[in-house]
């Protein structure tokens, strides 16, 4: 039988090597030419990240606990949840993980904020045109499934190690849910409600702001909630490119089989996740019942 039937007719080793080399070299020269400018673009983000982290680190611990507990109460109005959040934060501090938890929290909050600021407009654009949706969806698939280190090392070659590449890694991984669910939420708004809006002569913007977004809000909140959870899941990966926080002790524990160290810091990440999750969820839930209540009366 012909050999190409038995063995896959693969590209010659030399050609393959030449391609890989060409891509590597091209990327290096790109980084040499534009790297400094791209770094300058991210300077404000870095400045904000550093400022916010310092704010959380330098504020007295009881003030931060008060603020978080206040936000929890405002969002959920449930004493059990408020007490649980306070207890979790006190335990984290008592076990000596306060600083790292603040660092991780600063990182996660900035990443989530950025993801929301970028993600919701993209989601809205996607909901308005099927063509945009069909081009953005595969990109989101790539962002969620591409192994992080594949793009992390090029990012390190471009921006160095530290907060900014960490932020990029987290945002790339965590942004898809908020985009997807914003798109979905707006698309699920009842056609009849929109027709009613048309009947009252609403403009496109009025329709978006006063009908579609409010009605899609519970779904969008679910997206934001998922985005926060995925951002927290990236804490350890981000620490592999020099982001300080709870990820570093976990990494140390994993390479040295320090079971207890890993468990404590892992549980601190879980505690943060539960706090963020319960607060955003009950907020979304309350918003929904509030609206429904308004409709009934």
């Amino acid at each position: 039988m012909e050999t190409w039937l038995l063995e896959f007719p693969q590209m010659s080793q030399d050609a393959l090597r030449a391609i890989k080399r060409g891509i590597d070299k091209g990327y290096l020269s790109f980084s040499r030419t534009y790297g400094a400018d791209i770094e300058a673009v991210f300077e404000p983000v870095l400045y904000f990240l550093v400022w916010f982290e310092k704010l959380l680190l330098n504020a007295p611990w009881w003030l931060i606990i008060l603020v978080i507990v206040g936000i929890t109460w405002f969002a959920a109005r449930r004493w059990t949840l408020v007490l649980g959040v306070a207890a979790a934060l006190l335990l984290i501090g008592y076990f000596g993980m306060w600083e790292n938890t603040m660092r991780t929290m600063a990182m996660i909050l900035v990443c989530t904020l950025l993801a929301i600021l970028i993600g919701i407009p993209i989601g809205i654009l996607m909901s308005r045109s099927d063509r945009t949706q069909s081009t953005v969806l595969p990109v989101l698939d790539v962002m969620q499934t591409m192994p992080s280190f594949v793009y992390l090392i090029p990012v390190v070659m471009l921006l160095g190690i530290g907060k900014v590449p960490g932020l990029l890694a987290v945002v790339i991984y965590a942004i898809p849910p908020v985009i997807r669910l914003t798109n979905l939420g707006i698309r699920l708004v009842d056609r009849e409600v929109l027709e009613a809006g048309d009947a009252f002569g609403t403009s496109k913007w009025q329709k978006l702001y006063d009908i579609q977004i409010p009605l899609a809000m519970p779904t969008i909140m679910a997206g934001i909630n998922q985005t926060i959870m995925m951002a927290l899941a990236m804490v350890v990966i981000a620490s592999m490119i020099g982001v300080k926080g709870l990820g570093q002790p976990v990494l140390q524990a994993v390479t040295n089989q320090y079971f207890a160290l890993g468990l404590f810091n892992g549980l601190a990440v879980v505690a943060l996740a539960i706090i963020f999750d319960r607060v955003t969820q009950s907020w979304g839930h309350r918003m929904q019942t509030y609206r429904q209540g308004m409709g009934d009366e």
Partner: protein
Amino acid sequence: MKRVFAIGGLAVAMTMGLAWGGAASAACGKVTIAEMNWASAQAAANIDLFILKNGYGCDVETVPGDTVPTMTSMTEKGEPDIAPELWLNSIKPQIAKAVKEGRIEVASEVLDNPGINAGESWFIPKYMVDKNPELATLAGVLANPQLFKDPEDPSKGRFIGCPAGWACQINNENMFKARDMAAKGWNLVDPGSGAALAGAIAKAVNRGEAVFAYYWAPTALLSKYAMHRLDLGKHDAVEYGKCTSVKDCPNPKPNSYAVSEINTVVSTAFAKKANDAYSYLKARSFGPKEFGDILIYMNENKAGGEEAAEYFLKKYPQVWSKWVPADVAAKVKAAL
């Protein structure tokens, strides 16, 4: 029934293999070489394989290995015969004991002058030293944190240490503390992973920027980029064991890394049985330039040990022909 046939077949194949091997290499016999799981050792293993097979007519085969398992297997069972690149620093007592009991022999140093060409240290790019000769010494670098600005804390200098969880994280922390670097305006930054540490150095050198970091040789990174090795002073082994390598040591003193002992180790049985081949291994010691070149070749072409060996043997005949007698060199050359 089938199984009996299979086993019988295997036995026949093995006997035939042995007989054939014996006939082809009466002088040298069957030799196994440990092929470790890192680049430089894979290249060394395949270079030895090619020369022993084609130059000395040995019946050679590589087996996978790693530092501790290979050492244990060699001292306990006398197998494999050759470990072409064994890092002895962490397994010194066991090696010393096995040498004394006559089970293994240390043939040669893999790299010439390992004090300069191998091991861990702190590095800055050479172009920084060329521009500012003051930076040639550790004291000169430590006095100038403003030249190595930490982007996340611009009033301080950034020293990139060793990834979280590695043994070198502890000794870097202690050396950082011992030299009072925090008070001199330095931050110790944890790169988080080996890939990020290498990436950070490569990024800076590729763009002609400043970087001050811990690294180790022989590696593709240090061979590829011209880095200046800072002299960390004298190595004090007692202090190193007592404090430098101990986490949270209360009062560390300035210290430096031990010279890495990277050696070719062979089983005594092999050394006795194959005298000629053993004298080749005793002579085999790479210069930093060609060793670095092999590593760069492997890194850039994603090449394995076999390709690397071929590359080295073709490109540097003047180097390896010094390790073997003329008739062996001719045989190797003919096989290339």
